[in-house]
Protein backbone atom coordinates (compact mmCIF):
# COMPACT_ATOMS: atom_id res chain seq x y z
CA UNK A 1 0.00 0.00 0.00
CA UNK A 2 1.16 3.55 -0.74
CA UNK A 3 0.18 6.23 1.79
CA UNK A 4 -0.67 9.60 0.27
CA UNK A 5 -0.83 12.63 2.59
CA UNK A 6 -2.31 16.09 2.02
CA UNK A 7 -1.84 19.29 4.02
CA UNK A 8 -3.14 22.85 4.06
CA UNK A 9 -5.11 24.02 1.02
CA UNK A 10 -4.64 20.71 -0.83
CA UNK A 11 -6.11 18.74 2.11
CA UNK A 12 -9.09 21.11 2.20
CA UNK A 13 -9.84 20.52 -1.48
CA UNK A 14 -9.33 16.74 -1.30
CA UNK A 15 -11.50 16.64 1.81
CA UNK A 16 -9.09 14.12 3.39
CA UNK A 17 -5.64 14.28 4.94
CA UNK A 18 -4.70 10.74 3.96
CA UNK A 19 -5.68 8.22 1.31
CA UNK A 20 -4.21 4.81 0.50
CA UNK A 21 -3.39 3.67 -3.01
CA UNK A 22 -2.74 0.00 -3.82
CA UNK A 23 0.92 -0.79 -4.52
CA UNK A 24 1.92 -2.18 -7.94
CA UNK A 25 5.45 -3.38 -8.69
CA UNK A 26 7.42 -0.72 -10.63
CA UNK A 27 5.06 2.18 -9.98
CA UNK A 28 6.58 5.69 -9.59
CA UNK A 29 5.22 8.71 -7.72
CA UNK A 30 4.21 10.23 -11.05
CA UNK A 31 1.86 7.26 -11.62
CA UNK A 32 0.14 7.97 -8.30
CA UNK A 33 -0.22 11.64 -9.25
CA UNK A 34 -1.66 10.74 -12.67
CA UNK A 35 -4.12 8.35 -11.04
CA UNK A 36 -5.31 10.86 -8.41
CA UNK A 37 -5.41 14.03 -10.55
CA UNK A 38 -8.70 13.16 -12.36
CA UNK A 39 -10.29 12.20 -9.02
CA UNK A 40 -9.31 15.50 -7.31
CA UNK A 41 -8.76 18.00 -10.13
CA UNK A 42 -9.26 21.10 -7.94
CA UNK A 43 -6.80 19.89 -5.34
CA UNK A 44 -4.17 18.87 -7.88
CA UNK A 45 -4.47 22.24 -9.62
CA UNK A 46 -2.69 23.60 -6.52
CA UNK A 47 0.01 20.94 -6.36
CA UNK A 48 3.51 22.04 -7.36
CA UNK A 49 5.75 20.07 -4.99
CA UNK A 50 5.91 16.35 -4.20
CA UNK A 51 7.87 14.43 -1.57
CA UNK A 52 8.50 10.69 -1.25
CA UNK A 53 9.38 9.50 2.25
CA UNK A 54 10.03 13.08 3.35
CA UNK A 55 12.37 14.03 0.48
CA UNK A 56 11.42 16.39 -2.31
CA UNK A 57 11.32 14.63 -5.68
CA UNK A 58 11.87 15.97 -9.18
CA UNK A 59 9.28 15.69 -11.90
CA UNK A 60 11.80 14.44 -14.46
CA UNK A 61 13.24 11.62 -12.32
CA UNK A 62 11.31 8.36 -12.23
CA UNK A 63 12.32 6.00 -9.42
CA UNK A 64 10.17 2.95 -8.61
CA UNK A 65 8.44 3.21 -5.23
CA UNK A 66 8.85 0.63 -2.47
CA UNK A 67 5.69 -0.87 -0.98
CA UNK A 68 4.72 1.23 2.06
CA UNK A 69 6.13 4.48 0.67
CA UNK A 70 4.69 7.80 1.85
CA UNK A 71 3.94 10.39 -0.84
CA UNK A 72 2.90 13.99 -0.16
CA UNK A 73 1.44 16.29 -2.84
CA UNK A 74 1.90 19.91 -1.74
CA UNK A 75 1.00 23.43 -2.79
CA UNK A 76 3.59 26.21 -2.47
CA UNK A 77 4.66 26.74 1.12
CA UNK A 78 3.55 29.81 3.05
CA UNK A 79 5.23 29.45 6.44
CA UNK A 80 7.38 32.00 8.19
Amino acid sequence: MITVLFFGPVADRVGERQIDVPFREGMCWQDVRDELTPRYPEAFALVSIAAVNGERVRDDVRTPLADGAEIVFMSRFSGG
Partner: protein
Amino acid sequence: MNDAVRLQLEDFSQDEEVCALRAGSMRMGGIATFLGCARDFSEGREVCEIGFDAYRPMALAELQKLRTEAIERFGLIEARIVHRLGTVRAGDNIVFIATGAEHRAPALEACRWLIDELKERVPIWKKEITPSGEAWVTPHP
Protein backbone atom coordinates in the same frame (compact mmCIF):
# COMPACT_ATOMS: atom_id res chain seq x y z
CA MET B 1 13.47 24.34 24.72
CA ASN B 2 17.10 23.42 24.31
CA ASP B 3 16.91 22.10 20.76
CA ALA B 4 18.36 24.63 18.34
CA VAL B 5 15.56 23.91 15.83
CA ARG B 6 11.95 23.47 16.92
CA LEU B 7 8.34 23.37 15.75
CA GLN B 8 6.05 24.09 18.67
CA LEU B 9 2.60 25.27 19.71
CA GLU B 10 3.87 27.47 22.55
CA ASP B 11 5.29 30.96 22.38
CA PHE B 12 9.03 31.51 22.95
CA SER B 13 11.25 34.14 24.58
CA GLN B 14 13.85 36.02 22.51
CA ASP B 15 16.03 36.48 25.59
CA GLU B 16 16.05 32.73 26.30
CA GLU B 17 16.80 31.87 22.67
CA VAL B 18 19.65 34.37 22.45
CA CYS B 19 21.00 33.17 25.80
CA ALA B 20 21.00 29.57 24.50
CA LEU B 21 22.61 30.75 21.24
CA ARG B 22 25.49 32.36 23.15
CA ALA B 23 25.88 29.65 25.77
CA GLY B 24 28.64 27.77 24.01
CA SER B 25 30.95 30.60 22.97
CA MET B 26 32.47 33.85 24.18
CA ARG B 27 33.68 34.64 20.64
CA MET B 28 30.35 35.90 19.30
CA GLY B 29 30.68 39.55 18.40
CA GLY B 30 27.45 39.84 16.37
CA ILE B 31 24.02 38.29 16.80
CA ALA B 32 21.24 38.93 14.30
CA THR B 33 17.64 37.89 14.79
CA PHE B 34 14.48 37.91 12.77
CA LEU B 35 11.05 37.67 14.36
CA GLY B 36 7.98 37.17 12.20
CA CYS B 37 4.67 38.18 13.79
CA ALA B 38 0.98 37.91 12.94
CA ARG B 39 -0.35 41.22 11.65
CA ASP B 40 -3.93 42.35 12.21
CA PHE B 41 -4.22 43.41 8.56
CA SER B 42 -3.15 41.68 5.37
CA GLU B 43 -3.87 42.97 1.87
CA GLY B 44 -6.77 45.06 3.10
CA ARG B 45 -8.45 42.37 5.23
CA GLU B 46 -8.71 42.39 9.01
CA VAL B 47 -7.07 39.24 10.38
CA CYS B 48 -8.02 37.83 13.80
CA GLU B 49 -6.03 34.62 13.83
CA ILE B 50 -3.58 32.65 11.73
CA GLY B 51 -3.73 28.86 11.61
CA PHE B 52 -0.81 26.68 10.52
CA ASP B 53 -0.61 23.27 8.95
CA ALA B 54 2.70 21.45 8.44
CA TYR B 55 4.13 18.22 7.14
CA ARG B 56 5.95 17.97 10.44
CA PRO B 57 8.71 15.38 9.92
CA MET B 58 9.83 16.98 6.65
CA ALA B 59 9.46 20.52 8.03
CA LEU B 60 11.70 19.71 11.00
CA ALA B 61 14.25 17.94 8.79
CA GLU B 62 14.32 20.91 6.37
CA LEU B 63 14.81 23.37 9.24
CA GLN B 64 17.70 21.27 10.55
CA LYS B 65 19.27 21.19 7.07
CA LEU B 66 18.84 24.98 6.76
CA ARG B 67 20.60 25.53 10.10
CA THR B 68 23.52 23.30 9.11
CA GLU B 69 23.80 24.92 5.68
CA ALA B 70 23.73 28.44 7.16
CA ILE B 71 26.45 27.59 9.70
CA GLU B 72 28.72 26.25 6.94
CA ARG B 73 27.93 28.83 4.31
CA PHE B 74 28.36 31.91 6.51
CA GLY B 75 30.87 30.54 9.05
CA LEU B 76 28.46 31.01 11.95
CA ILE B 77 29.27 29.97 15.49
CA GLU B 78 25.64 28.99 16.15
CA ALA B 79 22.10 29.39 14.79
CA ARG B 80 18.59 28.68 16.11
CA ILE B 81 15.18 28.50 14.41
CA VAL B 82 11.77 28.21 16.09
CA HIS B 83 8.46 28.09 14.18
CA ARG B 84 5.07 27.95 15.87
CA LEU B 85 2.22 25.72 14.72
CA GLY B 86 -1.42 25.56 15.80
CA THR B 87 -3.28 28.87 15.85
CA VAL B 88 -1.89 32.29 16.77
CA ARG B 89 -3.66 35.60 17.24
CA ALA B 90 -2.94 39.01 15.71
CA GLY B 91 0.21 40.38 17.33
CA ASP B 92 1.58 36.95 18.31
CA ASN B 93 5.00 35.59 17.40
CA ILE B 94 5.23 33.12 14.50
CA VAL B 95 8.86 32.46 13.66
CA PHE B 96 12.21 33.30 15.22
CA ILE B 97 15.69 33.01 13.73
CA ALA B 98 18.91 33.87 15.56
CA THR B 99 22.43 33.72 14.11
CA GLY B 100 25.71 34.33 15.92
CA ALA B 101 29.13 34.94 14.37
CA GLU B 102 32.42 36.58 15.30
CA HIS B 103 31.56 39.63 13.21
CA ARG B 104 28.33 41.34 12.24
CA ALA B 105 28.24 40.82 8.46
CA PRO B 106 27.93 37.00 8.42
CA ALA B 107 25.37 37.05 11.26
CA LEU B 108 23.18 39.59 9.43
CA GLU B 109 23.54 37.92 6.04
CA ALA B 110 22.80 34.45 7.40
CA CYS B 111 19.69 35.68 9.17
CA ARG B 112 18.34 37.15 5.94
CA TRP B 113 19.23 34.01 3.99
CA LEU B 114 17.56 31.74 6.54
CA ILE B 115 14.18 33.47 6.53
CA ASP B 116 14.16 33.67 2.72
CA GLU B 117 15.07 29.97 2.37
CA LEU B 118 12.66 28.91 5.11
CA LYS B 119 9.78 30.38 3.12
CA GLU B 120 10.86 28.46 0.01
CA ARG B 121 11.81 25.12 1.50
CA VAL B 122 9.85 24.32 4.66
CA PRO B 123 6.45 22.59 4.23
CA ILE B 124 4.28 24.85 6.38
CA TRP B 125 1.07 26.53 5.23
CA LYS B 126 -0.78 29.42 6.83
CA LYS B 127 -4.45 30.29 6.79
CA GLU B 128 -5.78 33.74 7.65
CA ILE B 129 -8.91 33.72 9.76
CA THR B 130 -10.92 36.93 9.30
CA PRO B 131 -14.37 37.97 10.56
CA SER B 132 -15.82 36.92 7.19
CA GLY B 133 -14.12 33.53 6.82
CA GLU B 134 -10.83 31.71 6.32
CA ALA B 135 -8.38 31.66 3.44
CA TRP B 136 -5.08 29.88 2.85
CA VAL B 137 -2.29 32.30 2.08
CA THR B 138 -1.01 32.13 -1.48
CA PRO B 139 2.69 32.99 -1.58
CA HIS B 140 3.72 35.62 -4.10
CA PRO B 141 5.61 33.94 -6.95
